[in-house]
């Protein structure tokens, strides 16, 4: 028996030696994996990059499996997703894994970036590693956007329309650019085909190559050491200091530091699986048929903030803002390590960096939150689905009740809420009479102003009268009605016009 065991071991060793003498990769890779790294970075804060890589591999694998069934044709894509969801065993689960994997990947890449930024790890000699990382972030977002197009449902269709509309604002080359993006004059077969090409060939190729370079540079320069307040990065001394630190405190990356990466990656994979299993795949929503206009298109989660920002930009600065700001932001991220490549790394000594992260994270969070319920959009069905609360009809005259009907019929509720139901585009009307006088209401209704269209052409005088009379009864919790202070003054008058006899004429001329 012992002889057999030894013979098996001996032949295994021999096979390995044969392979390695031909391949020549196993030993160098093993050596690279076990390279010494400063003990202080074997931390749970340093696990995000490897987790992002693991998610990328998950996306590649699930993507290949989905491509076995998915049909990248404008005619069939939507149907093939239905087949995946309903007719293929575990097709729904693969779609869910790929969709949730994408959300997790964007999130982990962002967290990785924030960690590197706050730890000052982008500083010398890792400037280029950061720059490649910025490009990897953009490629990841590119994958998320093109992946949303792969769903080729209503949201994908109108999302492409939004993309084309933004591109159309580029001066001089707007029209050729739109045609280039769509692959023709309209959204159709060519559009899906080119986004499929981007999503499956071009961007993944760049992403994998970029990740390779990113990891190579991480090995070349070593994982950054844990920042300490007062330990300054200087181009003259940093590399020697890092080398000494590694000599003194170095531990082999595999396994002493890498076990945390492995545990975290497993936890992330498990979370993706749990989300996929319990929440299922994303969409598809309705067919990509632009004649179905009963839709409120919305982008995927990580683009909601852009969707929200686009609702708030004033028309006059919107185009320059859309075209210039992204360029500046990306350029700023790219040149960051070149202008701040030395100095303090610890966050406690970099208040502006901490402030920037806080403000950016808060802004993105607020805009994303707003994007989930789009208060700027009219609620198209509110005028027929939300009845006037009964309490607002009690003790009203017939004229006032007629006004309530006008309010409902003229779609006012699409933008104005009563008792919490209705659109949020305009102010709630529950206590409008305590804020506006009758004259102000008439003016606002007929002429519009602010974000409100003018209803002069949509209301006849009797409708206007009834509507405003009804609005005059809406005073919240019995608040006093709004008054025009100037009326009172001009009526009592003496202060301003002591010698004019014709006071009532003055009043009427207002």
């Amino acid at each position, binding site marked *: 028996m012992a002889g057999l065991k030894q013979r098996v071991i001996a032949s295994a060793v021999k096979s390995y030696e044969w392979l390695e003498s031909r391949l020549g990769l196993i030993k160098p890779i093993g050596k690279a994996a076990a390279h010494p790294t400063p003990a202080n970075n074997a931390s749970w804060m340093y696990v995000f990059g490897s987790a992002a890589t693991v998610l990328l591999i998950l996306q590649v694998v699930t993507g290949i499996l989905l491509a076995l069934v998915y049909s990248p044709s404008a005619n069939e894509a939507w149907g093939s997703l239905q087949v995946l969801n309903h007719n293929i065993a575990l097709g729904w689960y693969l779609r869910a894994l790929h969709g949730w994997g994408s959300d997790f990947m964007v999130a982990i890449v962002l967290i990785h970036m924030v960690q590197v930024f706050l730890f000052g790890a982008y500083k010398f000699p890792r400037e280029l590693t950061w720059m490649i990382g910025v490009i990897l972030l953009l490629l990841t977002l590119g994958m998320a956007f093109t992946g949303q197009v792969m769903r080729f449902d209503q949201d994908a269709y109108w999302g492409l*329309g*939004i993309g084309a509309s933004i591109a159309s604002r580029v001066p001089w080359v707007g029209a*050729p650019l739109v045609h280039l993006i769509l692959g023709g004059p309209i*959204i159709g077969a060519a559009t899906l085909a080119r986004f499929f090409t981007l999503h499956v060939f071009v961007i993944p190729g760049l992403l994998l190559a970029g990740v390779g370079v990113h990891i190579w540079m991480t090995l070349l320069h070593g994982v950054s050491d844990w920042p300490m307040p007062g330990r300054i990065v200087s181009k003259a001394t940093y590399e020697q200091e890092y080398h000494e630190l590694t000599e003194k405190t170095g531990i082999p990356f595999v396994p002493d530091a890498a076990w945390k990466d492995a545990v975290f990656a497993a936890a992330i994979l498990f979370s993706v699986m749990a989300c996929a299993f319990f929440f299922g795949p994303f969409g598809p929503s309705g067919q990509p048929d632009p004649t179905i206009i009963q*839709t409120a298109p919305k982008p995927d989660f990580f683009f909601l903030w852009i969707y929200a920002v*686009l609702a708030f930009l004033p028309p006059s600065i919107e185009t320059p803002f859309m075209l210039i700001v992204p360029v500046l932001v990306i350029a700023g991220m790219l040149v960051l390590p070149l202008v701040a490549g030395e100095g303090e790394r610890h966050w406690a000594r970099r208040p502006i960096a901490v402030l920037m992260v806080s403000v950016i994270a808060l802004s993105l969070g607020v805009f994303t939150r707003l994007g989930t319920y789009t208060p700027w959009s009219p609620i198209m069905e509110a005028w027929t689905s939300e009845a006037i609360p009964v309490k607002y009809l009690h003790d009203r005259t017939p004229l006032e009740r007629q006004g309530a009907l006008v309010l409902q019929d003229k779609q006012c509720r699409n933008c104005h809420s009563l008792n919490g139901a209705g659109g949020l585009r305009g102010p709630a009307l529950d206590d409008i009479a305590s804020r506006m006088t009758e004259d102000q209401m008439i003016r606002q209704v007929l002429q519009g102003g602010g974000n409100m269209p003018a209803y002069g052409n949509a209301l*006849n005088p009797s409708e206007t009268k009834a509507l405003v009379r009804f609005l005059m009864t809406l005073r919240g919790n019995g608040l006093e009605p709004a008054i025009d202070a100037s009326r009172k003054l001009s009526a009592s008058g003496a202060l301003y016009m002591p010698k004019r006899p014709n006071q009532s004429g003055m009043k009427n001329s207002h």
Partner: protein
Amino acid sequence: MTEFLKHPGESGNDGLTPEAKLAAHSRRTFLFKLSVLLNTAVGTVLAVPLIGYLLGPAMSKNTGSWIAIGSVEEFPVGQTRLVDFESPVSRLGDGPAAKVACWVRRVSAQQFQVFAINCAHLGCPVRWFAQSKLFMCPCHGGAYYEDGSRASGPPERGLFEYKYKISGASLLIHAGDMPTLATQASCGGKPLVQIEAATKKRSSSWPA
């Protein structure tokens, strides 16, 4: 290493003087540079048509064509109705995306306005509300009056209009590109030319 690479008749450098070796090296360097030049030329010849293919859609001057969207009788004067049609520039495999919808407003017996459903802000589909006489956009809250002019919200202009003509009993519109700010359906430099006439018409027939 070099002794392993020697082949009879090839590594003839061994017998040469240093001067001759240098000459041979410089000849090979020259030949290498020549080959780089050759490949640059071949690569350029290869690349030009590839780039042309890639940029093809951007260069094409597809202007669209006239298409009948229904009988004039289908549109009562004073009303605005949604009409679907198949895009005249659709191609094989476009599927449901080749369909197009537009809002047709009949101003008077002979006068129409045909609006693209695409919001002038970012292209979302606007909906017509006859009671409040407004088009509303579900995406960012753009609103337009019945004549297509901007009412409120983020759009910086009115709705895109298709050119139309009446041929016999049919209403024809000129459709092609998906309407965006750069690829408008048909306005061609003079957007919203019909608005003034429409406004006049409406004020005279306003049921006061």
